[in-house]
């Protein structure tokens, strides 16, 4: 008997929105393309190679596991590709090629497939992969950074009035200029003896205190905005990331609450607490904090991951604030210069509890 000559009967509704899982995922990938282009421009083909390696490994790994589990292979939904790409975006361009490969395998296996695949993972697999790499090979993850063409890595170009070339700098000043990322510099500057020595070299001028404010001057912010500064592949350019984020917001794929409250919290808290010894509070500081590191990448592309964030609007606000708070806490007093990924991971873990706390009251129900 041929069923197809029968009418189709299905439950209401009989019309459907065009959005599917597949086009959501590939749209996010598309939104990351500007960042990838910028990264390739600044670090050369190696950045592209690392990114694609991560993405392809993730896809292959997912396909193999699904084959072994004898479940339908769904790698064309783009989620594995996205995970691999995001993971590679969290690695710097000088990293060995096996790093994104192993990271992607771990992210897909432990982060996703052991829980039954897309939709069930408790934390963002890409971030888990990054945390795994950080814990396993800290030397590769934090060392061997590659400078952007034609710029000091840390983005500090205003030490020129101390010395004309690097050899003339004292070890500390040298360290400052060659620091991997602006956030590393910020971390070093929390040591007052450090500042004292810089000041000494500058002939008693309060340079150390000004370095940080110097950092936040328009020029540095501009570097951060366009991306000719040290960092991970995906953190490269605030501009490129904002471009992608705008696309996602326009397409209604991500919701504004998490990024806004995440970035907003970092902004406000860095304004209040971000001041360094001797430098006081600068109006530019909050901008420095939100432009540097992985904040933009994290806030728009990773903290907005559907599966691992709260369901309700209030929940998302709590989530965003929590991420921002932890980020700034880790940046200012933690053991790492950057805290975006750990703060998102931590909030991912807390998500079920947030969901529980913010369970909405049905329309027309009154509080008991």
């Amino acid at each position, binding site marked *: 008997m041929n069923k197809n000559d029968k009418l189709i009967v299905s439950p209401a509704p009989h019309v459907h929105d065009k959005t599917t899982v597949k086009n959501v995922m590939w749209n996010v990938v598309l939104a990351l393309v500007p960042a990838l282009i910028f990264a390739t421009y600044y670090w050369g083909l190696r950045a592209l190679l690392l990114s694609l390696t991560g993405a392809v490994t993730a896809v292959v790994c997912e396909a193999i596991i699904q084959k072994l589990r004898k479940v339908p292979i769904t790698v064309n939904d783009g989620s594995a590709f996205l995970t691999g790409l995001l993971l590679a975006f969290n690695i710097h361009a000088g990293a060995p090629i096996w790093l994104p490969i192993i990271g992607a395998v771990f992210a897909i296996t432990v982060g996703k497939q*052991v829980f039954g695949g897309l939709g069930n993972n408790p934390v963002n697999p890409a971030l888990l992969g990054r945390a*795994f790499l950080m*814990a*396993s090979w*800290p030397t590769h993850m934090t060392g061997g950074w590659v400078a952007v063409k034609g710029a000091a890595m840390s983005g500090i170009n205003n030490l020129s009035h101390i010395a004309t070339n690097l050899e003339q700098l004292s070890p500390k000043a040298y360290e400052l200029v060659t620091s991997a990322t602006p956030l590393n510099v910020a971390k070093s500057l929390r040591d007052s003896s450090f500042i004292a020595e810089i000041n000494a070299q500058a002939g008693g001028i309060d340079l150390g205190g000004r370095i940080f404010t110097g950092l936040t001057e328009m020029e540095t912010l501009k570097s951060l905005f366009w991306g000719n500064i040290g960092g991970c592949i995906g953190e490269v350019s605030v501009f490129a990331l904002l471009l992608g984020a705008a696309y996602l917001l326009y397409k209604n794929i991500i919701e504004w609450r998490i990024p806004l409250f995440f970035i907003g919290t970092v902004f406000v808290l860095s304004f209040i607490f971000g001041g360094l010894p001797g430098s006081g509070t600068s109006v530019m500081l909050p901008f420095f904090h939100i432009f540097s590191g992985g904040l933009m990448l994290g806030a728009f592309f990773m903290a907005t991951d559907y599966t691992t964030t709260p369901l309700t609007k209030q929940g998302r606000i709590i989530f965003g604030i929590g991420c921002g708070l932890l980020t700034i806490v880790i940046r200012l007093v933690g053991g790492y210069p950057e805290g975006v990924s750990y703060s998102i991971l931590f909030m991912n873990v807390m998500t079920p509890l947030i969901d529980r706390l913010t369970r909405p009251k049905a329309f027309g129900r009154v509080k008991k």
Partner: protein
Amino acid sequence: MTFIKELTKGLIKDNPIFVLVLGLCPTLAVTTSVINALGMGSAATFVLLCSNIIISMIKGITPSKIRIPVYIVVIASFVTIVDMVMAAYLPDLHKSLGLFIPLIVVNCIILGRAEAFASKNNVIMSIADAIGMGLGFTLSLTLIATFREILGAGTWLGMRVTPMSYDPMLIAILAPGAFITLGFLMALMNMIKEKK
């Protein structure tokens, strides 16, 4: 016959870690290296053996209200003995096992076996049970430690077993690695069981 059965059940059928899921704290904490695993395993086995003997001997004379305190005192005594002897004669091991030696007291394997087995069976059987469980515990620890040490340090029992170019995966000897390694080993056990 039953003696042999009680002796061997701890190895696979009632393996304290993989089947009964008891005593996880030391399991995860000390399996950073094989030598630690062996040390912890033998210490726990010793305590288990002694306390099983004593408890099966005194099972008739302890009123239920103070049963747990009495058992725990017995266990704690042996643990303290192990602690002191180890400090005196195996100081390096003592140092690396650290806090977890006194914590053998609260290892649920020991109190669990005391309650579940020794307090209901005679001395001979309790000895068999203790040796079996102890061996099962030690072997499981060693197995986990083998994975963690090779992956995380590239060595086994302190000997380098991986090529020098291998960059050890540090996470394996850190806390998250402990959980994940054990998780995967258990999943593997489940898979083998299913196949059977």
